[in-house]
């Protein structure tokens, strides 16, 4: 038997394993890679983590509830393209201006969130009402979402977002641009919701055993619909941030982010079986991927090394998950 204090210590390490790995990896890179140990580099890592980090919030919530959402990448691109077309000044942009000028900030954000929420709601309709498989439904949305982006833009791009929006990409707080802070604040807010509110608790319960949750009086269908809509809206938020960052939108915006997001979520300790995971862990997973990418760039290695390493890390993460489970079993 282990003493309670020792058990608590081991549990703490297991719960926060990704953070320990992140610190170790950053420390190793700082010693081994020239020019890695700089404030600017760390700020850049956090900046890079913005979009995958935001997408990962919604994806994690859905996976924790026992579902799947492959559509997030296309939803992000769709939201970015819609506000690009509405507010960008050139390309396919209509260049709508509002008075006062700052009004574009809440309006464009609301539009981006609404676009995401609508796609999330259609996903929810097919999954909850028509009992279709979430994997297939969201795969379809992944495909038609991207198709809609190309159709809306005619394959062209929108450029020059209004200055009132660009401020979020340019202005920095503690060396980190405001868009990255938006992502961090959103992560913390939803981490709190997941851990401390009944809504978050019920998501875990549904992911663990939906039948038991239903019998206990939890409104499983309603909660599932809300979560799909949330995941869509959060992908919309990622699209808003991405449109600001790139000052517009292109038809192939964000291609490939879906798989990076999946990798980050799994590395962050979310079980694909559902019912397990925390958002702070997921954010650490995002930072871990981002810091490795930065190290590879700094060492001047070809970009495909990033993919090799990310693939290996996903496998390692799943392996680690199994090991953690065994250690926990011994503790009980």
């Amino acid at each position, binding site marked *: 038997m282990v003493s*309670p204090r020792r*058990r608590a210590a081991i549990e703490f390490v297991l719960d926060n394993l990704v953070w320990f790995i992140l610190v170790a990896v950053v420390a190793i890179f700082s010693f081994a890679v020239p020019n890695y140990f700089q404030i600017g580099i760390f700020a850049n890592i956090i900046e890079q983590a913005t979009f995958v980090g935001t997408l990962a919030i919604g994806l994690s919530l859905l996976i924790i509830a026992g579902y799947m959402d492959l559509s997030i990448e296309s939803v992000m691109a769709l939201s970015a393209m819609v506000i690009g077309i509405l507010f960008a000044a050139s390309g396919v942009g209509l260049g709508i201006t509002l008075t006062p000028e700052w009004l574009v900030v809440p309006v464009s954000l609301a539009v981006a969130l609404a676009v995401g929420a609508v796609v999330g709601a259609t996903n929810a309709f097919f999954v909850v009402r028509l009992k279709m498989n979430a994997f297939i439904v969201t795969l379809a949305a992944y495909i038609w979402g991207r198709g809609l982006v190309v159709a809306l833009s005619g394959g062209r791009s929108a450029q020059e977002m209004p200055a009132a929006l660009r401020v979020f990409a340019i202005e920095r707080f503690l060396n980190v641009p405001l868009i990255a802070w938006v992502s961090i604040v959103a992560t913390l807010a939803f981490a709190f919701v997941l851990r*401390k*509110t*009944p809504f978050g*608790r*019920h998501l*875990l*319960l549904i*992911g*663990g*055993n939906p*039948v*038991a*949750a*239903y*019998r*206990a*009086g*939890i*409104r499983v269908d309603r909660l599932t619909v809300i979560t799909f809509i949330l995941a869509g809206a959060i992908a919309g938020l990622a699209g808003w941030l991405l449109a600001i960052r790139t000052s517009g939108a292109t038809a192939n915006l964000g291609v490939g982010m879906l798989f990076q997001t999946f990798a980050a979520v799994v590395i962050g300790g979310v079980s694909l079986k*559902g*019912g*397990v995971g925390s958002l702070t862990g997921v954010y650490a997973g995002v930072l871990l991927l981002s810091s490795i990418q930065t190290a590879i760039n700094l060492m001047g290695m070809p970009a495909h090394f990033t993919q090799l390493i990310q693939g290996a890390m996903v496998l390692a993460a799943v392996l680690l998950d199994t090991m953690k489970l065994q250690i*926990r*079993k011994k*503790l*009980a």
Partner: protein
Amino acid sequence: MTAREPLLSLDGITRNFGAIEALRGITFEIGKGEVVALLGDNGAGKSTLVKIISGGLEPSGGRLVYEGREVRFGSPAEAKAAGIETVYQDLSLCTNVDVVANFFMGREIVKRFLGIPILQERAMEAATAKAIADAGTRIPSLRTNVEHLSGGQRQAIELNRFVHWGGKLVLLDEPFAALGVEQTRRGLEMIKRIAAQGISVVIITHIMAQAFQVADRMVVIRQGQVAGDVRTEDTTADEVVRMITGEAVKPPRAPIAEARTTGPA
């Protein structure tokens, strides 16, 4: 000795699954504080009946009269709100979370800050610890995930949960399937204890001895109909078995058992 009022009356309950008639007009009553054993062979319709009472299924026909009013439960949440607790055959636990989270599943203690409900973990842990200790169950840590606990410990959590939440009517669908001898004995005592508090209990079991130990009345279901409704003291195990298998002629319906003035028989 006074006759008890009925808490729940079932009146001609039917349920079809497509062309199959699982229940073909079930009529019986459950009195306040009465322990009714629901008996019947596999596939007789017992579990379907439990699901209808607990809100998991809607009846195709017939009436449920609960506390003098006709009711219709659209979901387990509604039945629960009316005070009907259910312990299912396959356990209703979420193994991915800890004992406390399971104990308070669906009715977490919260405090509102700025309108946001916040889980009160300490209060929930204290309440769980007390309930588990009162029942004499030993679980090493309430913060352990249920997946690491034994079958008996899991069943104990489930049973303690319904005792803690009480309500007015408890449905137990084969509650002792995974329990050892000692835990079963405790479980049966628990049933008597809660019945003494005026809570009605419906227990489904295959084990005749258990039924005779706790039940005031036995209702036998055969092929979706009531094949027997007898007071425990007026019948024998052999007779009940014959009702289950359909060898006996259906005896007249027994009234709700009278309240016990002495200890359980």
